């Protein structure tokens, strides 16, 4: 009759599944954030050319801050697009 309930204390909540994301720049200290490196920066952009939030990529706050600055610098010199959809 009544729905089954899991007894006892709940496990700590982890939405979704899968492994914990780690910051790529923390994991690999030799990987530098450089606005000239459009290839690396490009992996942090969405299809539309928007910067992917850190909560998705797992980048730590410090590196995400540097990343956004680098992306914006790269955009001013047309190494990266502002948008893939032309106005």
């Amino acid at each position: 009759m009544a729905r089954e309930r899991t007894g006892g204390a709940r496990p700590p909540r982890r939405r979704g599944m899968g492994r914990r994301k780690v910051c790529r720049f923390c994991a690999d200290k030799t990987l530098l954030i450089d606005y000239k490196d459009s290839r690396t920066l490009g992996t942090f952009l969405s299809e539309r050319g928007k910067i992917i939030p850190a909560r998705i990529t797992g980048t730590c706050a410090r590196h995400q801050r540097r990343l956004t600055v680098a992306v914006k610098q790269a955009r001013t010199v047309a190494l990266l697009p502002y948008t893939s959809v032309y106005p």
Partner: protein
Amino acid sequence: MADRRYETLVLIHPEQGEAGSKELAARIQALIEDQGGTVSQVQEWGQRELAYLIGKQRRAFYVLFEYRTAPKALQEVERNLTLMEPVLRFVSVRQAENAPPAPLRPVRRPDREDAEGGGEAVDEGEVDLVGEREMS
């Protein structure tokens, strides 16, 4: 005032041609040195496709300057760059003192033209979708 380490990436109008862009690069280097800077490296990336149109142009010559100079002098260099007609755009960034010098051929090969997307694998081995999208 202590000198600082900077680098400036300059985009030169494609109409200048290979020779014209080299000449302009030399002029810019002279400009930096006139302001009391010491240029440690000049990198010519050649003509590259732009990620978006600038001044109705699809491509431009990229030249990177690495140098040390005083902040005041940088201002003057930047002011002069804005006055140069063939300079489409530029960005100056302060580099950390201990940062390694920019590696040669830092991004992708400048002479790539129509090998877009397909020829990627030959380039560096690691191909990612993003690199290809960037070309379109």
